[in-house]
């Protein structure tokens, strides 16, 4: 795996992870806000409950008019809240196990024609639900052609409506299934339907034992008195043989009281109506005496897309982390607008104030509930006030805030990271460019090749680039100055040298030939000439590049040239033997012949000087695809790596052996390299060690003409 360079970009990406602190702190803020708001709401709810309690406590006659102490089942229909929603489908599974069995007493029981049923009532929202599980061996349903509702098995309902009027209804189905009630005329002994009351309806289902009726009556059609009776007809002719009511044993026609709500309490509560709030007043027997408001407007969860669900999950995680609470997580029974009366026990029995929160199915809405005890003037507990409020306002806000927070912080995070990355990239590339420029400005040998262009930027990198550019310029100036100084020096030296030699020549001529002093003079003059020679070499080398430009290129045959030169070398260096290999044909290059000659001259001289005595210098010329290649190999010490880099520079000399004329300044290879550069060729020095003894090779490549 490639090593990850810890570049600026990488560093900045790591740094930008800290930007994650933004969304996290957003969440933290929202969590705290939510906790705070929810607490506030709880307090409001509690306050409301206590206010209601206070008001009701101050109405001393409130409960007196109502029978609260005991539920006389003979005289009363207690309206329990049904725990589940009842589906009117002829299936009694959704009813709690509270049905009471009602049977004919001995007197009324006719032989072989028993009639019994189990029955319960309950309350869901604004309806009174009733269940009848009738055991009847002989089910006679109404003939569809007849108007006589009473000539078949039927259910009779007798009630007083809200206005106090007596009403009679009959449910007499033609067939199984959906049934509605018919309002009957009240004339004694007549069974004439007045109209079809569809609002009182239910489901009649036949089964093995008899039949099942699930039905409901809206409270709008019901006052405070109610009684049911099941009437059995066993023959098609339709004579009622048995009738069984849900009333008292010896006063079967007396209607039972239905405790719907306390008008007084309701009146008081109506002043306290608050949106999204439900206020219950419950008496000691868990009967709801009054309620106001509804929670039905709770807002269903908005459809969750992927982002929302992610946002909500993320938020929940952090919320729980911060507030160390798990809202309603421990509730096993979801709230469903029904009471589990164990919730009220602490209040009703011990007078405790209770505050709790439950969640609605769908997960997001919660209900805040506060229960306060109601006491009479003697401080006896006579009931409880329950206030319920949804947290929808807060929750809706919460959702919006979460989403906004997440959107904004994500956007900020992404943009922030992007900006940082772009910035880092730019910085990185600027620095890299500067680094490359600096690298390229100075060649491998320390020679200044080009200058650095500085930027106008006013930041640190701009400063750095300007500094580097200034540095290079200064170095160049120094190098130029030194070169110039060398020139100047050379020039300055010439004049005195010329003067000395002129004086000596005159002296020599004055003395005349015979004088012994001539020896000294001749020696002196020779040395002066040598000195001047050194100066000339230096000058020539320093002006070489200029001089090269004035040379003329022409096309010439390197093979012929090398042949001619080869002869010359053999003559010039008689102590060295040469092995010169020149191919057949011609190799044409476009070059300055004098300079190529000079280059070869210097190289050969160099090789000869460094070759071990009595060894052979090999000169090889070959033609490559694009180049002419000249190789000169001499036996001798290897060149070490340090020298390899430097040896083509001016004034670098490897010599340990004094040359015969004693003059050597390390210019030869410098001249060679400069000439080769001028011809766009290349030179390479190599140590050869695969063929002892040690050899050194110089390989020159020149482009073909």
């Amino acid at each position, binding site marked *: 795996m490639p090593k990850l360079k810890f570049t600026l970009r990488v560093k900045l990406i790591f740094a930008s992870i800290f930007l994650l602190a933004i969304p996290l702190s957003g969440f933290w803020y929202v969590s705290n806000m939510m906790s705070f708001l929810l607490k506030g709401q709880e307090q409001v709810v509690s306050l409301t409950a206590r206010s209601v309690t206070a008001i009701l406590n101050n109405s001393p006659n409130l409960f007196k008019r109502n029978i609260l102490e005991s539920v006389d089942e003979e005289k009363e229909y207690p309206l329990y809240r049904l725990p589940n929603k009842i589906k009117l489908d002829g299936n009694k599974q959704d009813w709690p196990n509270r049905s009471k069995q009602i049977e004919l007493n001995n007197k009324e029981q006719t032989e072989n024609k028993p009639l019994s049923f189990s029955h319960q009532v309950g309350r869901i929202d604004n309806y009174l639900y009733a269940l009848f599980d009738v055991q009847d061996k002989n089910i006679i349903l109404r003939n569809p052609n007849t108007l006589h509702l009473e000539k078949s098995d039927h259910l009779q309902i007798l009630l007083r409506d809200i206005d106090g009027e007596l009403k009679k209804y009959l449910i007499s189905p033609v067939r199984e299934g959906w049934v509605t009630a018919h309002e009957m005329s009240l004339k004694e002994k007549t069974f004439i339907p007045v109209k079809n009351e569809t609002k009182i309806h239910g489901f009649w289902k036949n089964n093995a034992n008899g039949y099942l009726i699930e039905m409901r009556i809206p409270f709008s059609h019901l006052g405070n008195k109610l009684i049911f009776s099941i009437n059995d007809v066993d023959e098609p002719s339709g004579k009622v043989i048995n009738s069984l009511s849900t009333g008292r044993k010896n006063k079967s026609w007396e209607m039972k009281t239905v405790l719907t709500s306390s008008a007084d309490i309701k009146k008081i509560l109506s002043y306290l109506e608050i949106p999204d709030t439900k206020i219950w007043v419950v008496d000691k027997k868990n009967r709801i005496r009054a309620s106001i408001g509804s929670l039905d407007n709770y807002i269903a969860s908005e459809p969750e897309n992927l982002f929302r669900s992610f946002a909500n999950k993320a938020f929940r995680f952090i919320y729980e982390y911060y507030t160390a609470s798990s809202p309603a997580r421990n509730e096993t029974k979801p709230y469903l607008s029904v009471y589990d009366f164990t919730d009220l026990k602490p209040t009703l029995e011990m007078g405790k104030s209770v505050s709790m929160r439950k969640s609605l199915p769908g997960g997001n809405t919660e209900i805040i509930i506060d229960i306060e005890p109601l006491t009479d003037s003697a401080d006896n507990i006579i009931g409880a006030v329950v206030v319920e409020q949804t947290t929808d306002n807060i929750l809706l806000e919460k959702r919006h805030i979460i989403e906004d927070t997440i959107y904004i912080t994500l956007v900020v995070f992404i943009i922030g990271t992007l900006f940082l990355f772009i910035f880092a990239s730019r910085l990185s590339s600027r620095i890299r460019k500067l680094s490359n420029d600096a690298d390229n400005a100075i060649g491998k040998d320390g020679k200044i090749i080009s200058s650095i262009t500085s930027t106008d930027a006013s930041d640190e990198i701009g400063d750095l680039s300007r500094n580097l550019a200034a540095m290079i310029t200064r170095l160049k100036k120094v190098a130029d100055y030194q070169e110039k100084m060398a020139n100047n020096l050379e*020039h300055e030296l010439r004049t*005195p040298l010329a*003067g000395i*030699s002129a004086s000596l020549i005159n002296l020599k001529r004055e003395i005349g030939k015979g004088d012994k002093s001539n020896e000294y003079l001749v020696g002196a003059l020779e040395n*002066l000439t040598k000195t001047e020679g050194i100066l000339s070499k230096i000058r020539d080398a320093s*002006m070489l590049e200029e001089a090269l430009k004035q040379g*003329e290129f022409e096309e*010439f045959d390197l093979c012929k040239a090398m042949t001619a030169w080869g002869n010359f070398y053999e003559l010039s260096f008689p102590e060295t033997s040469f092995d010169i290999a020149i191919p057949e044909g011609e190799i044409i290059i476009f070059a300055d012949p*004098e300079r190529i*000659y000079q280059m070869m001259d210097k190289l050969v001289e160099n090789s000869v000087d460094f070759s071990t005595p009595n060894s052979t210098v090999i000169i090889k010329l070959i033609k490559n695809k694009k180049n002419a290649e000249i190789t000169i190999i001499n036996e001798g010490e290897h060149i070490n790596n340090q020298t390899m880099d430097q040896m083509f520079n001016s004034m670098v000399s490897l010599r340990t052996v004094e040359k015969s004329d004693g003059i050597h300044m390390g210019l030869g290879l410098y001249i060679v390299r400069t000439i080769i550069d001028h011809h766009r060729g290349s030179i390479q020095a190599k140590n050869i060690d695969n063929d002892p003894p040690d050899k050194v090779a110089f390989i020159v490549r020149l482009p073909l003409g």
Partner: protein
Amino acid sequence: MTKLIALVEDDELLRKNYADALRRDGYNVVTYCSRQEASDAFNSSLPDMAILDIMLDDDSEGGFEICRQLRYKSTTIPIIFLTARTNDVDRVSGLRLGAWDYLTKDTTTLDFLPARVSSLFNVIDSFKIPTNKAVERKVGSLMLDEERKQVFWKDVSISLSLTEFWLLLCLTKHPGHVKSHQQLMHSANVVVTDNAITAHIRRIRDKFKSIDPEFSSIKSEYGMGYRWVNE
């Protein structure tokens, strides 16, 4: 009659030595150490030859100024320039001043100065007598007058300096023969590096090419020497 040579050189040692050497050769020498001094003197009377240092007292044009002044007064007076740098040689060579010459100030100056002085005096003398056709030599399109040191290429006169003339002479003595750098140096009465010979040859070529762009009679022999080729 003894010739009078005027020597204008600001370096004291050189001035004295050159003057003494020339006197030893039998010439009268009068020396000047500044342009002003020489200028004033030449206003009243002219020498038979002037040897001028180009750079006088930080004035890089000093020698040329005097030269112009002298040329204004006399079209025939020979002038030898003493040059310190090689680019001065270019400048002198470019001055279309006839058979004049230049010499570098170095350890060899006094070795070659006498030859130049006497050659130039001979050139002047040869102008005084009518043209001696016998001394003219024709080599292809080239015509050389050895006494007057004049050169004609395709009948057009080319003004070469003395040194350049000697070099050309050496090359054309045996057309087709290769002359090495050494041989050329010797014939031109100079001791210079190979580079300098190359530069001289280049200047000669350039002068021919300015008249005849097709000129290619001086061929380099693989860098080892030069050869004159008749086309």
